[in-house]
């Protein structure tokens, strides 16, 4: 049954999941068969067949229905109804078979054998085979969508129509590889339609052909995309609905109104401002659910440019952190829908989270004292001036920029604040490195390598590449820890390395998560079974159903 959020629900789920993971060896799967388990996120009761669901998310229309490099959350949602992945990470944080039945490592973890599901066909009727997987590994994932994750990949071969062997030049942790295969960017496209053509600009990306429960129906640009039932879907009986529609409301207030009138049935990823949630729930027509975001935890960050004087000094960064009241940010900017972040590994990550890290409690007097001790006393009314850049792609970031300006000025630091649009922010932060302190965001999956670690490693410094190491932080010690984390295959040893990573990151603080932002879904009361995975944005919605 669909549930509304209750106090402590998220932490309860997190602890439950943590217990489950500990019991199964930190989420590592039985090697020959990916376990089918009960799904606590599923709603009980027989699914009712039929009906149309209109769904949306808290953002805009995608640029294409499928974007080979990933393309962010919007195309991720539109493409995952049609295109599938090899594995799925369920709400219990266990990998479930999707197009792969099993993923088995060799004894030295330098190769993996993938057994594929039998009898799967593409929507045009062609059979899905190991050749498709090999094509995607070599032509899609490795060069475009998962270059860093598959850095050590040396080959992919099809040993028979349903078996693929991946070879690596270094040991690859099992959780890491499974996370990659179940990841946001590892969708499978048909080789027979893409081979020999440019994957990125292929017109087929607007009308994808996949193996999923939904077939492309119609895309009315600026309005919605319609999906038709795939009657030959490999999972017999699904999808439950006759039709699925993803529609875009560019204005959050309209999104809330559409939920209220029933024109919209399901809305993922913070579709309305946090302040509107309680009002909508009180109407009795809408429920809120915070499940399903474990693998896409969301944060707002402060990034300190190591190329700039003063903020390149660790003691200054640490002092500045003491001037910031994170609880105030949660309460006022996020309306309580979040919690102060502790470290780059979030508290919602039961696999790697540790509390054993340096903390920077809000203490302006201590901040001032530390700055004095660093030889930066107040002179002529200020200690020094920083250029603070707020990437205002979210209104909360702009507000946070204003708060930080005030907070830093309270301890004598003059601030020149720029709140800029998306393209400007991307260029200034990740292209030109033109800032002292930047307010930005990142999303963190459970597996830290490479999505989180690349903010801290030397090889994460790629000029012009967004959401990487833009601060220029480079530490041999950090590189060594992450290097080991990438190849360590023992789960307990990985956990210890992750703790080392978190402690060093929280000591050197080149980039600091300030708030773990709570993600939420809103749904009409009759919508059932809409959260069954660890990343709801990528749900196929095959098992969703509508109560009479």
């Amino acid at each position: 049954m669909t549930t509304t959020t209750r106090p402590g629900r998220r932490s309860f789920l997190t602890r439950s999941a943590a217990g489950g993971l500990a019991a199964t060896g930190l989420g590592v799967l039985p090697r020959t068969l990916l376990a089918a388990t009960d799904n606590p996120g599923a709603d009980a009761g027989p699914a009712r067949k039929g009906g149309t669901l209109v769904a949306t998310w808290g953002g805009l229309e995608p640029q294409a229905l499928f974007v080979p490099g990933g393309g962010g959350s919007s195309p991720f949602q539109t493409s995952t109804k049609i295109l599938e992945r090899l594995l799925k990470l369920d709400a219990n944080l266990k990998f479930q078979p999707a197009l792969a039945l099993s993923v088995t490592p060799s004894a030295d973890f330098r190769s993996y054998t993938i057994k594929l599901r039998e009898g799967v066909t593409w929507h045009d009727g062609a059979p899905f085979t190991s050749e498709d997987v090999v094509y995607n590994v070599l032509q899609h994932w490795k060069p475009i969508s998962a270059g860093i994750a598959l850095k050590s990949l040396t080959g992919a071969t099809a040993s028979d129509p349903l078996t693929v062997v991946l070879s690596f030049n270094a040991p690859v942790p099992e959780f890491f590889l499974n996370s990659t295969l179940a990841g946001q960017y590892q969708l499978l496209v048909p080789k027979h339609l893409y081979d020999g053509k440019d994957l990125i600009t292929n017109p087929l990306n607007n009308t994808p052909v996949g193996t999923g429960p939904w077939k492309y129906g119609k895309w009315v640009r600026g309005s919605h995309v319609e999906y038709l039932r795939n009657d030959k879907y490999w999972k017999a009986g699904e999808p439950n609905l006759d039709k699925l529609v993803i529609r875009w409301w560019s204005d959050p207030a309209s999104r809330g109104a559409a939920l209220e009138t029933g024109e919209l049935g399901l809305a993922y990823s913070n579709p309305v401002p946090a302040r509107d949630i309680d009002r909508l729930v009180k109407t009795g027509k809408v429920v809120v659910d915070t499940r399903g975001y474990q693998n896409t935890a969301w944060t707002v960050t402060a990034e300190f440019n190591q190329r700039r004087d003063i903020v390149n000094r660790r003691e200054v960064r640490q002092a500045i952190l003491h001037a910031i009241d994170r609880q105030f940010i949660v309460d006022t900017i996020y309306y309580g829908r979040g919690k102060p972040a502790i470290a780059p590994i979030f508290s919602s990550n039961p696999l790697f989270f540790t509390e054993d890290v340096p903390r920077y409690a809000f203490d302006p007097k201590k901040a001032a004292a530390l700055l004095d001790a660093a030889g930066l006393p107040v002179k002529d009314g200020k200690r020094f001036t920083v250029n603070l850049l707020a990437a205002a792609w979210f209104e909360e970031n702009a507000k946070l920029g204003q708060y930080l300006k005030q907070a830093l000025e309270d301890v004598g630091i003059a601030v020149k604040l720029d709140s800029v649009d998306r393209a400007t922010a991307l260029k200034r932060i990740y292209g030109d490195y033109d800032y002292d302190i930047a307010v930005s965001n990142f999303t963190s999956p459970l597996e830290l390598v490479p999505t989180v670690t690349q903010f801290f490693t030397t090889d994460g410094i790629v000029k012009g590449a967004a959401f990487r190491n833009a601060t220029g932080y480079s530490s041999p010690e950090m590189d060594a820890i992450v290097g080991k984390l990438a190849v360590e295959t023992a789960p307990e040893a990985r956990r210890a390395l992750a703790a080392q990573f978190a402690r060093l990151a929280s000591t050197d603080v080149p980039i600091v998560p300030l708030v773990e932002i709570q993600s939420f879904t809103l749904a009409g009361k009759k919508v059932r079974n809409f959260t069954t995975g660890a990343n709801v944005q990528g749900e196929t919605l095959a098992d969703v159903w509508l109560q009479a």
Partner: protein
Amino acid sequence: MPIRLILRRLLQAVPLLLGVVVLNFALIQSVPGTFLDVMTAEQQVTDPALIERLRVTYGLDQPPAMQLLKYIGSVARLDFGYSYRHNLPVLDVILAHLPATLVLMLASIAIAVLVGMAAGIVSAVKVNTWWDSAVSAFAVLCFAAPSFWLGIMLIILFSVKLGWFPVGGMVTIGLDGGIWRQALDVLHHLTLPAVALGLFYSAAYARVMRASMLEVSRMDYVRTAYAKGLTRAAVVLRHILRNAVLPIVTLLGLQLGAVMGGSIVVEAVFSWPGIGGVLFDSVMSRNYPVVLGILVLSSLVVIVANIIVDLLYTRLDPRIKAA
């Protein structure tokens, strides 16, 4: 005469359109960030070689002047370029959205003109009465209320509370039926956004109509008409209105561009699948072929509309000759 006028005006439009392209290209170039910055960020592209390949593929390795010249050359061949973001030719992107915007513009202008003129006439005929004050208050309110706020208020009242109109979109998804049923469905969806946009602009028409009516009322020929023994209604309808309407026609021509701009906001509130959302997104993603394409085509729409206004002028007042 009108044909010569039309041809001359269309020829005059060529340097104007060239100016639009050059100015807007320069404006987009002057702001930080390129399409590739946004695209590589969205697509999580990190490989420097791939980024460079994309830069060459999309011509971003060329100097801006060369990019502009190439663009002008392709527009001259009626090729508006390719939208990397949409994976479609720019013209296809525009044609997919323009009809919705034109429908919204026409409906809102019709509401603005009809409501505004009616209010202005009442105000002028009942000058210095409470009718006049009420119309003035109405005009001030309509003009002061931002159309996005008015849109949200209309949604709360007529969609959420009363359930009379849909919250957004242009059609009911999956609606079957003949062309009339579908047309009525579009009309149903169109009502609130057209009212939200139309009421805002009706304020100007009301004020201009009132002033114009009062001015014409003081003319000698109006006094003569009364002296001939005509009824007040006849004088107002046959003598005052026809001459007082000329400033309204002028305003109509001037406001077309503004209505198109205003529709961007209303389209966002009502999820109207028009060109506004595409333009906004294209500016934000620095997708300049689409931005320029929309601006060129919308400039053309305004130019053509102004030619129609000029023709109307000569029809309404034969003393005005096409210059």
